[in-house]
């Protein structure tokens, strides 16, 4: 394992709701090794996007970081002044949004928007910026001639490439990609993911890839962080978490998705039920109400992170029995019976 480059510890993000507040992210810890792609995976509402946005410190009006640290290259992002944080934005931490359509300003050309970052944030002169624009477009495989086009003139996949070009403009150290391929069809998804991985290897950057789609993780990520209801359920290398999932939620998640090659690995089985309300989370393990393997202790005691093998953690009271549970989780009836 290479050196740790970003280290998130006990991160807590809360939303003010009415007079109270709820914790959308509650004690999340994970590491991003330098030059790797870490997949942050989970159902919508599990807090994965909130974590991603917390790293940029640009959040919804009613959201705030209420605890924990985010050590980025030796600096704690949670403790930086707004001024110092802003200096890091885009120069060191860039972002690829889910929908490039809505994330590019519709009234300016793509070149204008690239120039804006290159000149205002990168301090490049006119000629340098121009050269860099062309370089970036070549890098992501779009004709240079299309620089003068408006965002709506690109196809969905092309726009996502523009978003990648934009993110790489200032040679950042970390790129956060929030569901970068969700809106695209499977073939284009693969092209974009291939490109993202090639550029990541070539430039040696680190990537946090937020997705609900476990097949995307399987396709591209080095490490996986599985989130459930604001907690980390399981984390480890991609191979370990996907081939030997040790948390019942990860086992269920694997059953619920086809892989990106298109071949379904058996029958697709959804996990019955819905994630708990974060305003009033259940005591103990948050997955217990939906878990086919829950036992008495699950309903009252929050499970600790158990290291099932070196570098592979699962927050489950029964993590020790994982191989046996995995076997049972393969059967559709296991998930149906609990409904």
């Amino acid at each position: 394992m290479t050196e740790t480059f970003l280290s998130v510890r006990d991160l807590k993000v809360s939303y003010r709701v009415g007079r109270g507040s709820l914790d959308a992210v509650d004690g999340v810890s994970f590491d991003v090794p330098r030059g790797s792609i870490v997949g942050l995976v989970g159902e919508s509402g599990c807090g994965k996007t909130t974590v991603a946005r917390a790293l940029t410190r640009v959040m919804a009006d009613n959201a705030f970081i209420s605890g924990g640290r985010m050590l980025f290259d030796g600096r704690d992002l949670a403790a930086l002044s707004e001024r110092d944080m802003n200096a890091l934005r885009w120069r060191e931490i860039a972002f690829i949004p889910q929908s490039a359509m809505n994330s590019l300003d519709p009234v300016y050309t793509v070149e204008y928007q690239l120039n804006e970052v290159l000149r205002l944030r990168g301090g490049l002169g006119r000629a340098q910026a121009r050269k860099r624009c062309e370089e970036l477009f070549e890098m992501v495989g779009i004709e240079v001639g299309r620089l003068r086009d408006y965002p709506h003139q690109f196809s969905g996949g092309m726009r996502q490439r523009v978003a990648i070009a934009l993110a790489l403009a200032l040679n950042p150290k970390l790129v956060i990609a929030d569901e970068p391929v969700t809106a695209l069809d499977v073939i284009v998804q693969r092209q974009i993911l291939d490109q993202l991985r090639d550029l990541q290897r070539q430039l040696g950057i680190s990537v946090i890839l937020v997705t609900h789609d476990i097949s995307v993780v399987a396709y591209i990520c080095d490490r996986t962080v599985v989130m459930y209801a604001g907690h980390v359920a399981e984390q480890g290398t991609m191979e370990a978490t996907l081939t030997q999932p040790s948390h019942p939620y990860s086992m269920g998640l694997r059953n619920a998705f086809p892989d990106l090659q298109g071949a379904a690995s058996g029958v697709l089985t959804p996990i019955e039920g819905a994630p708990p309300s974060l305003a009033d989370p259940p005591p103990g393990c948050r997955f217990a109400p939906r878990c086919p393997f829950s036992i008495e202790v699950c309903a009252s005691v929050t499970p600790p992170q158990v290291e099932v093998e070196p570098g592979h953690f699962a927050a489950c009271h029964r993590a020790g029995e994982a191989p046996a549970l995995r076997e049972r989780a393969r059967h559709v009836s296991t998930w149906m019976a609990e409904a």
Partner: protein
Amino acid sequence: MSHLKAAASRTLQLALVLWAVVTILFLMFRLMPGNPLAAYIDPTFTVEQQEALMAQFGLDRPLWEQYFIYLGNLLQGELGQSFRYREPVAERILALLPNTLVLTFSSLIIAYAFGILAGAYLAWRRGSAVEQAAIPLVLTTRAMPEFWLGMVLLAIFSFWLGWFPAGGTRSAGAEFDSLFALYTSGEFLTYLALPALTLAIYSQGLPLLLMRSNMLDVMKEDFVTMARIKGLSNWTVVVRHAARNALLPVMTSFAIAVGYQLQGNVVVESVFSWPGLGRELVNAVSASDYPLAQGAFLMIALVVILMNLVADMLYTLLDPRVGHA
């Protein structure tokens, strides 16, 4: 190419609307109670004048034939003779149009400059006490009769304080070589101030409310959030991205507002004795000067319809998404 085609079909559509309005007007003036000839021929005209007009408007012919003669005359800009002034209606209207346009545009430019800035400010201060107080106040300005506002301003600033003249565009006996010389004279500004202010106070509500709600919507857009994640300055985010997008529909509404303003002018010009189209229409109707009334009405309708077209064009011009797709 589709860009041009859309513009052409819109133009054609508005030409049809104009034709319909012209026809409605023809019918109104013909089907009114009383002598149909009275619409065009004043009994006090000389016999020769009466006969000339009879021939020009074909008043002895059947109705449908008169209709085509009327359309033909209109196409040539022939609007008949004013009863009161004994001069061609077209000339008189063209002489008054600049006064109305100067008043309309100066008041609207003030209203939009203020409304856009104040609207953006209120969006920025969303939920504050300032905003809570400002919105009902703005709605109140929309609820005011414009002429009443004009009366109050006149009573205070002209009759009481004596800061501005009570009406007209120039002092008695003042002569100017051209309209341009008049409009650029300092004295003209003192005449323009009160009527323009009256119309501006009434008109600022539309751009203000529109700008505010657009800003609130745009600030929630992903590209604004992205601009923040890019670390761009607050000014760049709010002005270059949010305001630039929020402005689109506001600018389009300017053209529509010109049309509405012309209607409001009818009363405000009367309060301030402003020699414009609206006051002329009122005077012509009061004096039963039908050709003049009809001409003034047509001119106002023409500007309203043209402005609808301009609004469409502005929209295609300002928004790159329209017309390329």
